[in-house]
C-alpha cells in the first residue's frame, strides 16, 4: 500500500497541478497567447508531433555528438594530466576558466568561426565545450581516488607509471568517469538548446528553434509543446544513462 502510494505520488501531484492550471485558465478566462491551458498545450503537442519529434531528434543528435567529442578530448587529456602533477597545475586553471565562462558569451564567436551557414556545427561545438568539464574533472578526480594502500603496493613492487595508470588509476577512475559522463550529457542538451537560441537561425532545426519560432508568432501553446518535448527528451536521456551507470557499476564491483 505504502509502496503503491509512493509510486503514484509524483503522478498525482502532476495531475493536481495540471487540473489547477486548467481550471484557473478557464475560470479566469486567461487569453491563451498569455497562458494556454494544458488541454491546448496537449492538442498543440499532438498536432505538431512529427515536427517536434524531428526537432527533438536533431537536438539529441547534436548533444550526443557533442558528448562524444567532449569525451574524446577530455578522457585522454585527463589521463595525460594525471601522469604529471606539473601538467595538472598547468592545465587546471585553463579548464576552470573554460567552465566559468558563460557559454552564451562565447556562442557568437563560435557561430562566426563555424560559418553562418553551418549553425549545427557551432551548436555541437558549444555543447561539447559545456560537456567537456564534467567529464574532464570526473576523470581527473577518479584518477586520484585510488586506494592509498593499493598505491603503496604499487610503490612496493616498483611499478612503472604506465602500469600504475593502466592497472590501478584508470580502473579506480571508472565510476567517477561514468558519473561525469552522466552529468555532461544533461549539460550537453542544455548547451545545444542555449547555443541554438544564440545562433538564432533555423538551420539546425532543433527544439530551441521550435520555441523561438512559435514565440515569434505568439503561438504560446506550441512553445509549451516544444518545452514538453524538451523535458521528455531530457528525462529519457537521464533514464537511459542511469541504467547504463547502474549496469556498469555492477560489472565494476563484480555484482550482477
Amino acid at each position, binding site marked *: 500500500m505504502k509502496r503503491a502510494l509512493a509510486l503514484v505520488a509524483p503522478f498525482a501531484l502532476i495531475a493536481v497541478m495540471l487540473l489547477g492550471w486548467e481550471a484557473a485558465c478557464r475560470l479566469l478566462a486567461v487569453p491563451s497567447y498569455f497562458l494556454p491551458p494544458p488541454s491546448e498545450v496537449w492538442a498543440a503537442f499532438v498536432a505538431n508531433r512529427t515536427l517536434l519529434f524531428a526537432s527533438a531528434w536533431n537536438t539529441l543528435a547534436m548533444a550526443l555528438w557533442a558528448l562524444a567529442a567532449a569525451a574524446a578530448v577530455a578522457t585522454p587529456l585527463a589521463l595525460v594530466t594525471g601522469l604529471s602533477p606539473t601538467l595538472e597545475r598547468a592545465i587546471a586553471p585553463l579548464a576552470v576558466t573554460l567552465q566559468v565562462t558563460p557559454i552564451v558569451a562565447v556562442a557568437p564567436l563560435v557561430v562566426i568561426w563555424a560559418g553562418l551557414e553551418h549553425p549545427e556545427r557551432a551548436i555541437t561545438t558549444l555543447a561539447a565545450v559545456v560537456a567537456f568539464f564534467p567529464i574532464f574533472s570526473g576523470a581527473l578526480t577518479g584518477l586520484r581516488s585510488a*586506494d592509498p*594502500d*593499493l598505491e*603503496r*603496493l*604499487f*610503490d*612496493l*613492487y*616498483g*611499478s612503472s607509471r604506465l*602500469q600504475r595508470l593502466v*592497472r*590501478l588509476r584508470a*580502473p579506480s577512475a*571508472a565510476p567517477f568517469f561514468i558519473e561525469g559522463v552522466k552529468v555532461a550529457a544533461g549539460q550537453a542538451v542544455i548547451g545545444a538548446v542555449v547555443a541554438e537560441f544564440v545562433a538564432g537561425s533555423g538551420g539546425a532545426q532543433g527544439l530551441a528553434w521550435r520555441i523561438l519560432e512559435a514565440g515569434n508568432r505568439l503561438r504560446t501553446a506550441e512553445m509549451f509543446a516544444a518545452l514538453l518535448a524538451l523535458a521528455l527528451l531530457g528525462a529519457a536521456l537521464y533514464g537511459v544513462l542511469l541504467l547504463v551507470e547502474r549496469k556498469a557499476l555492477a560489472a*565494476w*564491483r*563484480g*555484482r550482477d
Partner: protein
Amino acid sequence: MSEPLVRLDEAQVAYRGRLALGPLSLDLSPGALTAVVGPSGGGKSTTLRLLAGLEAPSAGRAVRRLARGETAVVFQAPTLAPWASAEANVALPLELAGMGRTEARTRARAALARVGLAGAERLRPAQLSGGMAMRASLARALITAPKLLLLDEPFAALDEITRRALADDVLRLWAETRPAVVFVTHNVEEAVYMAERVVVLTRGPGRIAATFHTPGPLPRPPGFRADAAFRQTVEQVSAALESAVRESAA
C-alpha cells in the same frame, strides 16, 4: 647469526618538523618472527613503512638488504582491487614484475589454494567474506616468495574465530618458506602468539620501551593459548605496554 635483512639505526621520522617516530633501532634477521605492539598513534604503521622502504628516515639510518619483490605488505584492510577477480588480484605482483599472464595466473591459483581459497579464483572482492578477502591479500603477499613479510594489523576488522584461524594459517605459511615476519598489532595476546620476539613501543613519538622473547614452539601447538608460560608472557607484555603508555603520558 646471519646479517640482518633490515637494520634500523637510530632511525627517526618527522612530519612537518614534528617527530612521529624514534629514535628507534631494530634488526630483522632472516626467518625471524617479530611482533610490534604499542598504543594508537605510537608510530607502529610508520615503523612498518620504514621497514618496507616505503618511507625514508628523516634522521638516522635504515639499511635494507632486500631486492624489489622481496618485501611484501599486508595492510589492515584487504586492499584488493574491486574490479579484478581474486586470481587477478593475487597475480598482480608477478604481472607488475613482468611475468606473463598465463604463468602468473597459474601461480596465483596455487597461492589461493595454499590459503584455503581453492574455488574462489573467479570471485570478486565484493563476493568474498572479510576473512576470505584477508586470505586473498595474504596469498598476494606470499606469491613473490618474499624474504620479508610485513603485516599491519591484518586481523583488526575480523571476528575472534576468524582471527585465530588466520593467526594459525599465517604461522603455518611462515613455516613453509620462513620469511622474516613483522606483525604489527595492538592486541597483546595476538602479538605473543604470533612471534618469538615482541617489541613494545611507547606512545608517539614511538621508541622501544621493552623487548620480550616468547616461550614455546612456532607454529603454536593446539591449546597453546591456555599454556601457563604463554599467559604469563601476555601479562608481562601487557604490564610493559601499560607503563609505556603511562610514562609517555606523564
